[in-house]
C-alpha cells in the first residue's frame, strides 16, 4: 500500500532513472487485474470441493465443533470416515465398497455396448448408400434432444411386462416379459439406447471425414466391408471412440435418475449415486460420513478427468462446436 500512496508525490516531482512514470506504473498494475480476477474466481470455484475434502478427513467430533477451516489452526486428520463409509456405514446403507463395484457393473457395459453398436451404424451412415439415409440420420439428430423422461414409463412397463401387439382379436408377443426391473442389465440397456444418438452422431462426423483413398485402396486389395470396418475404420476412429467413451462412461457413472427408476428397489445392486443420496436423506445418521462418501463416488471421474482431459475436451468440442 505504501508504494501506491507514495506514487503521486515522488513520481510527480522527480522522475529519476530508477523511477518509472506514474502512467506506466498504473498501466502495469492494471494489466495484472485480469489475471488477479481470474485467480480469484478460480479460488472461489475450488473452495467448495476443497472444503469438502478437508471435512472428509476430520473426525466426527471435529466436524461438529467447527468448520473445515479450523483444520488450519488445529490440524488433526483421520481416515476413519472413509473406513466407515466403505465397510460399515450406519443403518440400511449398502457399504460404499459394494456400491463402488456396482457402479462398474453398470458403467462398463453401458459404455462399450453403445460404442460398438454406434461404430457400425456410423460407418453405414457415412460410407454406404441406401434409401432413406438422409431422413434416418435427421431422425437420429432429433433423438439427441428428446428428454429421457419420455422413455421412463414405457421402458419400466416393457421390462416388467414385455411388449404385446393385439391385432384382430389375437395377441402377439413382440418382446417377452424378461423381468429385468431392479437388475443392473435394465440400467445399462437403457443407457445404451439413450447414449446411441450422440454416439452415432459424433462417430459419424469423424468417420465421414476419413479420406476416401484409404477405403478405395483397401477395396482394391480385396477387403470386404467388414474387413474395412474392422481393420481401417475402427483403428482410424480411435480418437473419436476414446473421446466418446470417456463422455459416456462419466455420464453413466454419474447418472442418478436411470438407476433410481430401474434399480432402486434392489439395494444390493445399487450404484454410488443412489447410496450417496440415501445417506444425504437419512437425517442425522452418518452425516459425518457424507463428505468421505461423496469423494468415494467422485474418485473415478476425477482420475479420468485429470488423466484424460484432452480426450474429454475433444469429445465436448466435437459434440457442441461442430454440431
Amino acid at each position, binding site marked *: 500500500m505504501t508504494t501506491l500512496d507514495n506514487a503521486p508525490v515522488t513520481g510527480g516531482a522527480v522522475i529519476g532513472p530508477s523511477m518509472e512514470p506514474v502512467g506506466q506504473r498504473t498501466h502495469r498494475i492494471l494489466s495484472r487485474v*485480469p489475471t488477479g480476477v481470474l485467480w480469484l474466481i478460480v479460488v472461489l470455484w475450488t473452495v467448495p470441493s476443497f472444503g469438502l475434502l478437508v471435512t472428509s478427513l476430520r473426525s466426527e467430533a471435529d466436524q461438529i465443533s467447527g468448520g473445515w477451516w479450523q483444520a488450519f489452526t488445529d490440524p488433526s486428520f483421520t481416515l476413519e470416515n472413509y473406513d466407515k463409509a466403505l465397510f460399515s456405514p450406519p443403518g440400511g446403507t449398502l457399504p460404499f465398497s459394494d456400491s463402488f463395484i456396482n457402479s462398474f457393473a453398470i458403467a462398463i457395459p453401458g459404455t462399450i455396448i453403445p460404442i460398438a453398436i454406434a461404430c457400425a451404424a456410423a460407418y453405414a451412415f457415412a460410407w454406404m448408400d441406401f434409401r432413406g439415409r438422409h431422413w434416418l440420420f*435427421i431422425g437420429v439428430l432429433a433423438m439427441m434432444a428428446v428428454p429421457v423422461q419420455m422413455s421412463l414409463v414405457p421402458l419400466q412397463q416393457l421390462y416388467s411386462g414385455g411388449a404385446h401387439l393385439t391385432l384382430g382379436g389375437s395377441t402377439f408377443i413382440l418382446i417377452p416379459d424378461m423381468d429385468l426391473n431392479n437388475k443392473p442389465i435394465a440400467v445399462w440397456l437403457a443407457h*445404451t439406447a439413450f447414449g*446411441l444418438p450422440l454416439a452415432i452422431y459424433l462417430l459419424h462426423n469423424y468417420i465421414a471425414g476419413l479420406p476416401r483413398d484409404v477405403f478405395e485402396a483397401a477395396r482394391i486389395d480385396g477387403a470386404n466391408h467388414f474387413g474395412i470396418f474392422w481393420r481401417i475404420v475402427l483403428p482410424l476412429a480411435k480418437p473419436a471412440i476414446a473421446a466418446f467413451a470417456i463422455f459416456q462412461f462419466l455420464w453413466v457413472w454419474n447418472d442418478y435418475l436411470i438407476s433410481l427408476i430401474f434399480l432402486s428397489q434392489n439395494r444390493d445392486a445399487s450404484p454410488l449415486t443412489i447410496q450417496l443420496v440415501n445417506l444425504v436423506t437419512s437425517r442425522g445418521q452418518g452425516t459425518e460420513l457424507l463428505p468421505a462418501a461423496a469423494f468415494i463416488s467422485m474418485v473415478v471421474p476425477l482420475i479420468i478427468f485429470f488423466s484424460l482431459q484432452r480426450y474429454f475436451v475433444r469429445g465436448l468440442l466435437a459434440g457442441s462446436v461442430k454440431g
Partner: protein
Amino acid sequence: MDALISTVINVVIALAVVGGLFVALNLVTDRAPQRWDDRIRPWLFLGPGLLFLVVGLVVPAVRTIVLSFRGGNDGGEGFTTDNWTGLLGSDTVLSFDRAGDILTSRLLLAGVLLVVVGIVAAKRSAGPGAGVDLRNPVTNVALGVALLAVLMAVFSTLRGVIWNNLWWVVVVAGLATAFGLGLAVLADRSRNEALAKTLIFMPMAISLVGAAVIWKFIYDVPSSAQSGGLLNIVWPGDNIDFLRSGSIQPWNNFFIMVIMIWIQAGFAMVVLSAAIKGVPTELGEAARVDGANDAQVFWRVTLPQITSTILVVITTLTITVLKVFDLVKATTGGVADTDVLANRVYDTLRGGDFTTSSTYAVMILVLVLPIMYLNIRRNREEIR
C-alpha cells in the same frame, strides 16, 4: 463379493454382445452373394442401433404421448384431455395469480433503467445526428443484463413448476454462458491458463449428486450434527437455510441454480475458449493497425466471429437444464417451492400415476422442441 460376481457377469454379457455383433457382421458380409449383399449390408450395420433406438426411444416416446391423453393411472380408461387441462389449470404447475406483482417488481424497474442506459449509450456511440449504434459494449451489456433482469422478475413472481423450469433455463443458460465467456477471455493469454481452466472445468466431471453434497456443506444451517456451512458463517444476518427457508422463497431456487452454474460455466468456458482461439489472429491485428484497442477488438471482431458458438452453448445448456432432476432431488426433493417438471415426472411415476407422469414428460418435450428444431436446421446444412 456378490457385487463383484454381478459385475463380472454384466461385463461378460456386454463383451459377448459386442463380440457376437461383430462376428455376425463378418460372417454375413463374407458369405452373402454380391448383389444381395449391396442391398442388405447397410441394414446389417444399422440394425442393432436402429433396434435400440426404436425400442428404447421412438416407441416409448410415442407411447408416452398417447398415455398423456388417456384416463386412469395406467392409461386403461380411454381418450381424455383431463391430464392436460387438470395440470395446466393447477396452481402448482402454471399459476398466473401474481402476474400483477411483476409491474411493481424492483427487478423490472432495474431492467427498464438498463434499457434506457443502453439506448443512451447507443445514441452517444453513433455520434451526433447519426441515429443509434447498437454494437457498442455498454449497449450490449446493458441490454443483456436488462433482459435477464426482466425475465428474472417474471419467473420469480409467477410460480408453478413450468415457470420454475423456465427460470432455471434463463438463469443457468444465461449466467453460465456469460461466466464462461468472461473466464475464456480472462484466461486467454494469461500465465498458467491450462491450470486455471482445469480447476474451473473440474466440476463437469463429477456427478450432480456429488455436487449437491459439496454445496450442502456451503449452505448448511448449524445444528447438533453439523457445524454450519461456509455461507452461513460469512452471511451477515441470522442463520438461514438457503435451500428451504420460507423467508427467502422463491430465491432459494436461485441457490440451487448456483450449483448448476458452478458446474456448467466450465463447459461454456472450454467451448468458447476454443472458439476464441479459432478466430484468425489477422483479423484482430488488422483492427489494431486501424487503431482499435483491446476492448474494441473483442466487441467488434472476436465476438461477432463466435456468435454461432455462443448460440450452440446456450442451446446445449437449455436442453440440459430443462431436464434438471438430480440437483433438485438431492438438495430439497422439490419442497419449499423448488419443484421442477423432471422431479414431478419421477414422483408421479413412483406413485404409480403413469398418465400424469407421462403428461409432465411431454411438457418437457414441448419445451425442448424449439431447440430440437434449431439443432436439426443447423446440422442439415452440414449433411448436404
